[in-house]
């Protein structure tokens, strides 16, 4: 635990990637630390978390009891610090007793002890925590709290971890990236397996390939050369997935490396017909007729394991394939997209993402304008000759998304942020007018500069009307332009609708609150979007058909755009 705490402190203190990489490489290569501890450290630093052992509310209650502090003071402290693990550590150290003579246990021993606590009753859990709080130093307590409450998040991405391992193993980073994919659990020998020069069979038939991610196309496609060199597809608004059929088994992975088996039985059923040794890259979408259903419909399926008949009927899901990564057990990622795509179409998979034919970029632009009406996010541009790379690499795969919709909303509630933004009021609830009332429509966490955040924080503190725990209601005076990707009906929200990916585009200091937008505007937009989407479903959508109507720019966007 001491060594791990020291590594964590080093990673936390260093801001440069190179320095983080050096610290991580040194730790992972340090043979004086047990291999299992290093494997656990790697797994945890990459953001994996232990199954939740103790409810945060219990932790807050117990630290209050441990420090003899009233609950309200624990809450005030937590609101100020913004991180439960750190709050626990900061509060506990005041009551620390001289540590026992023995050193802190090793990381893997701590993990084992925590896992042993999972089934234990509250009395045992509380006693264990009190022991740690009484004897451990602050930095170790902070990490312990992190293990109990969530992920570590200290800037160690999968890419950085792969680079560190690649340095130690003297292997290409992409090889290690692949080895780190999917589900692996720390244990004896795991690290040496990751670092082994040669690995015959893959660790498991379930192991996915790293996803190739497209980069946003900011400037438009004119600099991309001849459109004939590019494959165009819609940019679908679903869940990016990888469908694996190997050794008679099916595995469906999300881009977040979550195994989705059991949630989409219709996809798994279809995959049974795929030949062994096939891996597809594609999009999971709820679909009806000729077009996708809004993301909100897919959402009803995401968390549902073994969905019932009704769920299956209301949001039927399909896997729209757009790439072939493995064929007949062979890794095809180095072959050009054109060849992969041709082979994909030979496979007989029922749903492939259509290729859109355009003669020039103007036609592509016209197609993109139809995106909102079709329920998609824009266009994907992929070079015919491109191999399937790992991670986000600029140059050969671009996403050309529609410009977001915007609306001007009033700040009504603020809450302190977390992590880097703890102690600052940075989480905002924004509202639109309905009659004389402001109705919340979105929460936004980002989009302002650090200077603006600090300024707004000061303003919030001086214009608080009411406090509810960590939330402050503020005077309705500040107007923000909110950008968002789409609208969906939502009975759960007071406004009856929800914005997709809302973020702050601009602080409208020029605008008085009374001139912010009305909720009605969004409701019309929602109606418009729904009409447009059903229209798109009704129209035939074949590869060529897209080129026809560039004028059908979505009604919702023009109605909502405040500019």
């Amino acid at each position: 635990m001491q060594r791990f705490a020291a590594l964590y402190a080093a990673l936390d203190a260093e801001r440069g990637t190179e320095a983080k990489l050096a610290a991580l490489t040194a730790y992972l290569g340090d043979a004086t630390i047990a291999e299992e501890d290093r494997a656990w450290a790697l797994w945890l630093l990459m953001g994996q978390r232990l199954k939740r052992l103790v409810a945060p509310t219990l932790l807050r209650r117990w630290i209050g009891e441990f420090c003899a502090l009233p609950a309200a003071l624990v809450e005030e402290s937590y609101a100020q610090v913004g991180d439960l693990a750190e709050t626990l550590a900061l509060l506990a150290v005041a009551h620390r007793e001289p540590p026992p003579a023995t050193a802190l246990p090793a990381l893997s021993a701590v993990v084992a002890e925590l896992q042993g606590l999972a089934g234990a009753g509250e009395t045992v859990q509380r006693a264990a925590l009190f022991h740690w709080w009484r004897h451990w130093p602050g930095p170790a307590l902070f990490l312990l709290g992190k293990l109990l409450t969530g992920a570590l998040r200290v800037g160690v991405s999968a890419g950085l971890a792969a680079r560190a391992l690649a340095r130690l193993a003297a292997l290409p980073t992409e090889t290690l990236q692949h080895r780190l994919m999917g589900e692996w659990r720390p244990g004896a020998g795991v690290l040496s397996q990751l670092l082994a020069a040669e690995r015959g069979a893959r660790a498991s038939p379930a192991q996915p390939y790293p996803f190739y991610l497209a980069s946003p196309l900011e400037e438009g496609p004119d600099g991309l050369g001849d459109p004939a060199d590019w494959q165009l597809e819609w940019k679908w608004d679903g869940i990016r997935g990888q469908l694996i059929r190997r050794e008679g088994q099916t595995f469906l992975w999300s881009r977040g490396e979550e195994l989705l088996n059991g949630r989409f039985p219709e996809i798994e059923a279809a995959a049974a017909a795929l030949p062994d040794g096939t891996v597809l890259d594609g999009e999971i979408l709820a679909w009806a007729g000729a077009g996708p259903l809004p993301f909100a419909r897919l959402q009803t399926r995401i968390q549902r394991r073994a969905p019932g008949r009704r769920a299956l009927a209301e949001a039927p899901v399909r896997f729209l394939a757009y790439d072939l990564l493995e064929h007949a057990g062979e890794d095809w990622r180095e072959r050009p997209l054109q060849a992969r795509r041709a082979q994909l179409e030979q496979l007989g998979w029922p749903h492939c993402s259509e290729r859109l034919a355009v003669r020039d970029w103007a036609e592509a632009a016209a197609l993109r304008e139809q995106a909102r009406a079709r329920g998609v996010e824009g266009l994907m541009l992929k070079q015919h000759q491109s191999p399937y790379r790992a991670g986000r690499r600029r140059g050969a795969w671009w996403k050309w998304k529609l410009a977001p919709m915007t609306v001007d909303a009033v700040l009504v509630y603020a809450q302190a942020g977390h992590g880097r933004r703890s102690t600052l009021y940075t989480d905002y609830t924004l509202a639109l007018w309905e009659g004389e009332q402001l109705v919340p429509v979105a929460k936004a966490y980002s989009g302002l500069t650090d200077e603006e955040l600090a300024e707004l924080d000061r303003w919030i503190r001086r214009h608080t009307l009411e406090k509810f725990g960590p939330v402050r209601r503020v005077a309705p005076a500040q107007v923000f332009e909110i950008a968002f990707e789409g609208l969906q009906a939502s009975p759960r929200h007071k406004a009856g609708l929800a914005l997709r990916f809302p973020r702050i585009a601009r602080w409208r200091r020029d605008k008085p609150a009374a001139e912010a937008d009305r909720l009605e505007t969004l409701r019309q937009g929602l109606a418009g979007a729904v009409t447009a989407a059903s229209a798109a479903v009704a129209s035939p959508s074949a590869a060529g058909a897209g080129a026809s109507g560039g004028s059908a720019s979505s009604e919702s966007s023009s109605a909502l755009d405040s500019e």
Partner: protein
Amino acid sequence: MNDCIVPTEQGLYCPAGDFHIDPWRPVPRAVITHAHADHARSGHGHYWCSREGLALTRARIGYGAGITALDWGKPLRFGAAEVSLHPAGHVLGSAQVRVAVDGEVWVVSGDYKRDPDPTCTPFEVVPCDTFITEATFGLPVYRWPDTRDTAREILDWWRECKAQGQTAVLFCYALGKAQRLLAELAALRDESGGPATTETVYLHGAMTPLVKIYREAGIAMLPTEPVGNQPRFFDWRGRLLLAPPGASGTPWMKRFAPYRTGFASGWMAVRGSRRRAAYDRGFVLSDHADWPSLLRTIRETGARRLLPTHGNTEALVLWAREQGLEARPLKTEYEGEQGSASPVEAVEERDSPADGRGGAG
């Protein structure tokens, strides 16, 4: 009975004595606790401050107004009120104001701390009925490490920078914190008992006149030189520089590259503040009372009534009520310690910080 001290538009006011304490708008009679900008403002008719704080107050408000210097504990009559100043241990000359009217005693703490500080007279407990306390760090998560340990950490960091051929730029408040750091560094000993360092430290222009006032008050500090007096191609690598937080990220910094930055403040006790402030290192050092000191001080005054002001007043009110004291927050415009301020914050304590508790440190 009537309140002895009440908040008004101009600041804290004593009706029985017809004077204000640390007023923020112009008034005829101003009793000043200490020379930080949010407490000592120019434009008042006449000033009273501690003798120890006279030079700093004068430097702050200029020569336009009269100042009467008071010795510690020596009472002075304002109408029906008896007023005396008592050391607060915050910065050189910082005072608490004791006001007695008809046998009822009120104390306005101003900013204060209980940790040892070689640059000012230590805090004196003044028994009272009503205690108006600052609450900048009024939450149990704030407790300061030993100042010597922090000073040692800073020295180690300076040496690390030197070993790597970098300039060590340490940001801190120009009045109080800078001088305390210079004194603490000078007081560090090596294994043989000699001074751990006697090296010259370089000062941002905003600090030089203030350091001079401390030297004239007889405070022992490391030798200093103004940055501006150095030749054009001076080799800055391995040197320690002190600068106010506002200088961070300005073109002034360019000449010191390659450099590392640090920030010495109580806010650095919390990781989120450290990360947001975007300095390479955060050192926990404050001239305000931490949570244990606040509680201890409240107990020691024996006050029955507590009126916390500026900072995390609510937590203190909560705690005090649990102890059976009468307590409510008092709204003032003092700023406490400038927070984990963003680099654009003013060169000195001008406006409140990112944390909204900003101002003088």
